[in-house]
């Protein structure tokens, strides 16, 4: 059962059938909570139960010393069972990643002899200190966990906290795994009226080294600059680099902390200030104006706004996949040239977005390694591609088309953003699609090259199914855009409306807790086309929404550590899988044999 459950149609059928029976029958869900390592019963465990269709309808049971729990008077149905205790993070029953085995209560189901194996959780704590060995307060500490995402192992941020007055942070309730600590902090003296130092109108660098050594030593470092105002004191124009435990500049170089159940590990980080990087952004000199925008979550982001006709926004994020916003500050130092300062050196993702009014907008994302003051020139010296086109949705392929419309329906209310991603440069360009389904890169910064075309929202139930073009070569979802000629592109969109449900069997009996994997037949399919689930206590599983196509269904008893998007790894299982062909809107129900 996926934690984010969609409606389980099969279940509705069961309930409807039972409601006709005269005396309402009730069922029970019960068992024992034990330590996953020792098998000892765990008293004082909080066990919660909720119907998968109404997760807010929660019941709680506090176990006694025998570790036993019992929920009585339950209607037949499928329930989410979770438990937690001091020293044991809240866990789903037989949980794997975001999946767990839901418990089915009903006729013929033994739901009263569950053995809930709780894994002891670990604590990761530490102190962030500065160059004087003083605690750094309010440092933002991000916890990354090595986890499976889209079929490959990677480090993903899972929690974030701020240090206290002792510079301490603490992450509790961590399960067995590999973790990394990252720290973003700002020197405290930056709060005392020191604003960013502007380098110069010409962009020339200013030497910092002499004055910084003083600060490093903690000596009587005098930053006396009689000519300088408070607003531009280069010796205080310092930042802490984004630092990963123990002292790495990037996530890739960070120490990986293996946490064992029940352990308390310490990861202290010392921050050392370095000169702030100054990023000059050159934009077309069209009456630029400066503005700061608020994001939805209240974070201030840095925006270089051109004017009402053309505007450009620059957002900086830490790291290559950057989710942590870096609050740089900006100054216009000459028309069309903006300086962003307060930026730590290291990997940074620059997101530049601009629009020419209306629905035409482009976003360009670029990961760069900043080690010195850098200029980003957005005035586009080279030739630009002239790409425009239309997005066609095939949301309804049945013959009941409305009169007066084409073979395809227009996306009236759906807002798309198309993303052109270059595998070569790593840059990506986004453009919004108008309500009429039209888009254009005319006048925007799309250079010629080879791009994969996708919808930018990965969670969208829509995807690009194919491309057609005049003036360019296309293959499946890839387009090769030449220089010097206009390109007309037609993007075909398909919708995920299929579902696959069924029961996992082993030796002829329903099998709980199996990893269910729906493998797309096209090996080049991106990992988002894989679907997973975990079979529930009655062996049932359900996956939706799925795009039409050919798939292979696998049920694996010990599949949770597989690098499942790797065709070589899957090769041994695929021959015993079940081929599934999903026509548009198909809902398929089938039984899967557990391997």
């Amino acid at each position: 059962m996926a934690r984010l459950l969609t409606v389980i149609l099969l279940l509705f059928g069961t309930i409807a059938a039972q409601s006709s029976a005269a005396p309402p029958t009730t069922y029970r869900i019960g068992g024992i909570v034990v330590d996953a390592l020792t098998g000892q019963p765990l008293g004082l465990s909080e066990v919660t139960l909720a119907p998968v269709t109404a997760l807010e309808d929660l019941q709680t049971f506090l176990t006694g010393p025998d570790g036993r729990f019992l929920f009585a008077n339950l209607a037949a149905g499928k329930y989410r069972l979770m438990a937690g205790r001091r020293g044991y993070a809240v866990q789903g029953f037989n949980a794997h990643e975001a999946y767990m085995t839901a418990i089915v209560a009903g006729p013929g189901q033994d739901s009263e002899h569950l053995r809930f194996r709780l894994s002891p959780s670990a604590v990761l704590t530490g102190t962030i200190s500065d160059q004087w060995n003083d605690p750094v307060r309010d440092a933002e500490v991000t916890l990354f966990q090595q986890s499976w995402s889209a079929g490959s192992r990677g480090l993903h941020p899972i929690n974030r906290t701020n240090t206290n007055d002792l510079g301490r942070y603490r992450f509790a309730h961590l399960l067995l795994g590999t973790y990394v600590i990252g720290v973003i902090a700002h020197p405290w003296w930056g709060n005392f009226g020191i604003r960013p130092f502007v380098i110069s109108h010409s962009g020339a660098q200013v030497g910092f080294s002499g004055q910084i050594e003083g600060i490093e030593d903690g000596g009587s470092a005098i930053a006396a600059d009689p000519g300088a105002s408070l607003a531009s004191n280069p010796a205080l124009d310092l930042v802490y680099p984004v630092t990963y435990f123990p002292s790495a500049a990037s996530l890739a170089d960070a120490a990986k902390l293996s946490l064992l159940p029940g352990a308390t590990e310490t990861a202290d980080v010392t921050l050392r200030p370095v000169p702030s990087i100054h990023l000059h952004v050159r934009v077309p000199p069209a009456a630029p104006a400066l503005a700061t925008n608020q994001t939805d979550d209240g974070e201030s982001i840095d925006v270089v706004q051109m004017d009402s006709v053309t505007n450009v926004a620059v957002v900086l994020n830490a790291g290559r996949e950057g989710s942590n916003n870096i609050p740089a500050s900006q100054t216009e130092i000459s028309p069309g040239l903006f300086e962003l300062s307060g930026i730590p050196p290291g990997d940074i993702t620059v997101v530049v977005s601009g629009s020419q009014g209306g629905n035409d907008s482009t976003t360009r994302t670029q990961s760069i390694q900043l080690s010195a003051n850098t200029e980003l020139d957005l005035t586009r010296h080279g030739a630009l591609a002239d790409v425009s086109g239309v997005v066609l949705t095939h949301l309804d392929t049945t013959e009941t088309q409305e009169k007066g419309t084409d073979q395809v329906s227009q996306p009236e209310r759906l807002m798309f953003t198309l993303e052109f991603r270059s595998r070569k440069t790593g840059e990506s360009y986004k453009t919004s699609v108008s309500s009429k389904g039209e888009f254009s890169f005319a006048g925007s910064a799309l250079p010629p090259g080879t791009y994969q075309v996708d919808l930018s929202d990965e969670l969208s139930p829509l995807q690009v199914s194919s491309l057609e073009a005049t003036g360019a070569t296309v293959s499946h979802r890839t387009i090769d855009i030449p220089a010097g000629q206009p390109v007309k592109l037609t993007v075909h969109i398909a919708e995920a409306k299929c579902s696959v449900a069924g029961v996992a069997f082993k030796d002829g009996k329903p099998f709980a807790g199996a990893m269910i994997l729906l493998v797309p037949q096209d090996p080049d399919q991106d990992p988002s086309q894989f679907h997973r689930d975990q079979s529930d206590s009655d062996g049932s599983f359900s996956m939706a929404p799925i795009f039409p196509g050919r798939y292979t269904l696998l049920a694996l008893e010990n599949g949770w550590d597989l690098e499942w998007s790797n065709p070589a790894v899957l090769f041994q299982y695929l021959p015993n899988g079940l081929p599934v062909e999903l026509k548009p809107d198909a809902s398929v129900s089938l039984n899967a044999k557990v391997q």
Partner: protein
Amino acid sequence: MLRPILSVLLLASPLLLTSRLMAQQSSLNSSSCPCTLRGTVIDSVTGNPVRGAFVQASTGSAWSAFTDAEGKFQFDALPIGPIAIHAAKPGYLSEDDFGSRAPKNFSLQLGPDAAPAVLKLTPEGLIFGQITDEDGEPLEGLTVWLFYRNPTGRGLSPNSRLRAVADDEGKFRIAGLPPGTCYLAVRPMEGPALTSTRNAQVPQGFAPVYYPAAPDISSAMPIKVRPGRPSQANFSLKREPFVRLTGTVSGYSPEQQVVLRLQDFLGGPMSHEIAFDASSGNFQSKWIPPGAYTLFASTNIPGTFDASVAFSSARQSFNAHSTLSGIHLVLQPSINIPVVVRGLPFANSENESSPNFILLLLAKGQASRGPSHYATKANAPTAAPSGPLSLTVPNVEPGTYDVNAVVYRGGSYYLESVNWGSTNLLRDPLVLDSSGAVPPIDVVVREGAATLSGTVVSGNQPVGAAVIVFPPDQQMPPGFAFSGPDGAFTLHLAPGTYRVLALDNFTSLDLENHDVLRSISARAQEVTLTQSQTASLRLELTTVEE
């Protein structure tokens, strides 16, 4: 919330004595600068040097330095003349912690051979503790709120900036506290996460408490915060059966939407949902911790929050120690109270320097102030250039209110009277029942306020302090002012005889306690002020005993 100045952030005693001398020297000897300023930053409690403190010296330009291992700093090549010095470090109170009337800078006249400056930093106060249940098991995720006694002497004000969430070991820390007296309360997690049912029909959980285990403010134990000396405050909470509130609401028409809100004794927004059936008028709360609650019901036409749209409301407070049923709320139409202000010169309210007026109604005796009611000149319709100003306090529910009228930006104006019928609102509360038409609140403003200025000293040192002014009418609440780091304060007062007192710390005082008031007012200086008179006082600081 007003926050008092409780101590002086920066002191440089040698400099105060020498600065006048130096200014004389510098005028004779200006050619010998650029000057050098040396100094030390020390901890005001331990007297130890503070290493790594940020020191800034500024004239028009700024110079910055960090102190070395001995707490020393040095600026070279400074110009002769006045210069401001400022020191800061995490763990020490900054100016923000003392409120806006706090010392901005320490300033001196810089000349050749300047004596070393000594800057004192006051270490912050800290409260830490642990929250456990009746079995000694740590409780995680509970929020600890910090309260100060309201300077106006009425109840407590939470400091939303200063709160903490207990970690997985039940531990919490609240740092950055100025010295003074505060109160702590623990509010259990909101929402459906009841700690345990223990399989009982009635869910159990934790009720909010004031430190250490008080169900209300009257039995709460104050916590003394001292600079650099952490205070410990542990909570041991007991699981109690939760309660439910059920009853009916009447007094609304079918097209009106009724909104029910519940506030616990900590006030603030409550997420406790109440199920309400408009057709029957029945309501039922979720399971909630036992304790003191205020239930507030009002009609709200969806989408309109216009003050001119009348609505009905009802409010009831009770102690829910067990499940309460049969609560009945009768919605009463809210009342618009006219306000007539005489004697205030009319001027374009766009003009920021013209005197302005606000009248606030504060619901009395409520855990929470509820919705705020006020009338202000800024919101008044354009009035005739002369004659009284007519204002309205809209949509006031029946109840008892303290009235707070303020003339601001008008140093020469004072309030002569605020009357409501025969009630003197400067002294007595406004009691509003639902009997329909209400007389106007009659405000008389006069020109010719007396100006009382002065200096607060401790020994011979000027100090920042809270200045308390007891009005001629002993029934009236005292007024407050704050002296700056130079000890200076200024007050504009109506003519009369006042008793004036300077206190180092008034957050520990219970100003609703008449014995306390009497004991401190005995130490006050008396001053009689006539119309437009300017008077000056030198007040010796009174230290509040612990």
